[in-house]
């Protein structure tokens, strides 16, 4: 068990690339922290620096208050799970899990006991004498976890440990990883590029972009109060819709129509007088089919008529993909990066918006529909800096 502190940690690779820039994270003892961000944002680099597999260029890394920048990986007492699992192909499952203990010169009886215990927890007892090559993906993943837990390290580091599993198994393993971490109470730093994993697993989530920390907070906090366009677009699935807009005289004008500023936003925004450009963000789940709303709740929001391009019914609810008239594209590096990361620019569906409606919706593809949206949930961003106009830390 340990407390890990990254204090303005930076990494510059020998080729000059600045992969991680002044990242500061305080990880409490027993906490489950997720590092999330698009590929290439420096997640693995950060993790490897904590592990000791990469040198720290500047800044300080402290484990339990002690500076460990110069310590070799084996002296940090940290275990790591790799995306590729990195199982030793020439060893059986038992030998794989026993390897860290054998290196630590633990006596045979203890090794056996600990390996059997770990195998029990991970449901691997039946496979102890098989070679990794003969195991399924999920089993290999569990062996990798087993190798990490046998020696009760101070902390676990996991680099996209579930990325090589198929979707269904990934969801199952997500639950078991979470359970295991709660059970062991070991400080865990977990890297993923999948925002769903980040939201479901972590006590706190660190969003990285281009080596810079964008925001640190609980999943709910990031969802409710994204610090900037990037976090807003990255967290949540399907991702937030963004419209160009203006605010003036206590109301917001956007392709969704003109609606009064909700109280939550009034104070923050009124500072600059007169008219100003903003980017208006609203999540798909904050839309609803207006015909399904009672009058009282209708009052609380805005109404807009849009044309539905595609309707995807999920059973429990339906995703309406729509376009709005007179909506020009938003110029933003952050949104462009998000679009590129999710592959949206490749599929050419860059301009669409999404609304999540009740399954009872009467929406039909190709037909117009009146949508209600919750003005309380609007997010306003500065178009030049991308920052949320309301900063809640």
């Amino acid at each position, binding site marked *: 068990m340990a407390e890990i502190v990254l204090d303005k940690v930076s990494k510059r690779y020998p080729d000059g690339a600045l992969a991680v820039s002044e990242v500061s994270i305080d990880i409490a003892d027993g906490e489950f922290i997720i590092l999330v961000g698009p590929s290439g944002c420096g997640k693995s680099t950060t993790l490897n620096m904590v592990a000791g597999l990469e040198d720290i260029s500047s800044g300080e890394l402290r484990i339990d208050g002690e500076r460990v920048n110069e310590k070799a990986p084996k002296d940090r007492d940290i275990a790591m799970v790799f995306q590729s699992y*990195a199982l030793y192909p020439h060893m059986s499952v038992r030998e794989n899990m026993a390897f860290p203990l054998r290196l630590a010169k633990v006596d045979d009886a203890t090794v056996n006991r600990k390996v059997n215990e770990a195998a029990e927890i991970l449901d691997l007892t039946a496979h102890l004498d098989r070679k990794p090559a003969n195991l399924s993906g999920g089993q290999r993943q569990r062996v990798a976890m087993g190798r990490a837990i046998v020696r009760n390290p101070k902390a676990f580091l996991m680099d996209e440990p579930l990325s090589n599993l198929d979707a269904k198994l990934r969801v199952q393993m997500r639950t078991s990883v979470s359970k295991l971490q709660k059970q062991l109470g070991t400080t865990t730093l977990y890297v993923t590029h999948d925002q769903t994993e980040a939201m479901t697993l972590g006590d706190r989530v660190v969003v990285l972009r281009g080596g810079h920390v964008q925001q640190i907070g609980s999943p709910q906090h990031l969802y409710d109060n994204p610090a900037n366009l990037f976090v807003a677009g990255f967290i949540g699935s399907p991702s937030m819709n963004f419209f160009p807009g203006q605010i003036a005289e206590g109301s917001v004008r956007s392709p969704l129509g003109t609606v009064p500023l909700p109280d939550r936003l009034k104070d923050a925004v009124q500072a600059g007088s007169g008219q100003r450009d903003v980017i208006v963000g609203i999540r798909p789940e904050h839309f609803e089919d207006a015909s399904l709303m009672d009058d009282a709740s209708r009052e609380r929001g805005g109404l807009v008529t849009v044309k539905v391009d595609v309707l995807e019914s999920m059973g429990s609810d339906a995703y309406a993909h729509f376009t709005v008239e007179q909506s020009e594209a938003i110029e933003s590096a952050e949104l462009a990066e998000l679009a590129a990361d999710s592959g949206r620019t490749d599929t050419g569906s860059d301009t669409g918006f999404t609304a999540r409606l009740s399954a009872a919706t009467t929406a039909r593809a190709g037909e117009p529909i009146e949508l209600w949206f919750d003005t309380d949930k609007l997010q306003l961003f500065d178009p030049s800096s991308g920052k949320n106009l309301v900063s809640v830390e």
Partner: protein
Amino acid sequence: MTTQGPNPAETAAGSTAVAEPAEDAKRGNGKKNGKSALSEGKRAERRLAWLLCAPAVIVMVAVTAWPIIYSLWLSLQRYDLRFPDDTEFVGLDNYVAVLSSGYWWTAFGVTLAITVVSVAIELVLGMVLALVMHRALVGRGLVRTVSLIPYGIVTVVAAFSWYFAWDQVYGYFTGPDDAPLTQTIPSLLIIVLAEVWKTTPFMALLLMAGLALVPDDLLKAAAMDGANAWQRFTKVMLPVMKPAILVALLFRTLDAFRIFDNIFVLTKGQNDTSSVSMITYNNLIKGLNLGIGATMSVLIFISVAIIAFVFIKLFGTAAPGSDTEGRR
């Protein structure tokens, strides 16, 4: 003399090296017949495969199978070109003569010693070189090219440069009273040195291919598990690249066992430094005794086959190109 040198060596090497492709073809054949139920399309495909292979198979039979069979035939005869009228079928008499001769066993011992010592040294040096080349951050291409130079030099030329280094008269490593190439042990050491210098790069190249098989993550994982550099090397790297090491050892052992050029140039086989290839050459080409010469080359062939068998069956070396290669 010097221009003639390499030719017999090559023929000697040629007559033994043929064992490998011939064996490969046989193995492929057996596998193909293994499955019985075949669709029409599969059968047509197979027929086409055979047709496409046929020219190569015919050439191989002509240039390898035939000489092997002919040597076998010669080895059962008394056949000395100096007494051509005396030719006669003598059964295994030649084998008895060779196997009961001290010359053969001395040469066999010398060959074995050179093989074991030089391959062992090459393995260690080659591994060091491979690691350096694999880890080199800057100038990897240059390091690779430079280290391969010895392998690119014709063996006889290299052997002569070693000869001029150690010769009593011209040698720049030797004084006037110092003639290492006239004493058995020093000569053998110099022969091993020349072999090692020449073929270590080849070993390094084969081992480097094996190093590429070891994923970086595995070494990182070992580091996280608490292994120091030596433990990472012995407990992870070596076992994972074992197939590549065995292949490299097999190649080099077979090669080293047929050593000829270096000995031919450095000592001409004097002072008990002859290898089996050397005495075969002496009997066959110099002595014109086709019967005894052929017997010896058949014995070399058998030795090489045994080495290959031991490597493949006992150590589980995957033959290059077979489908178990590189599988983990």
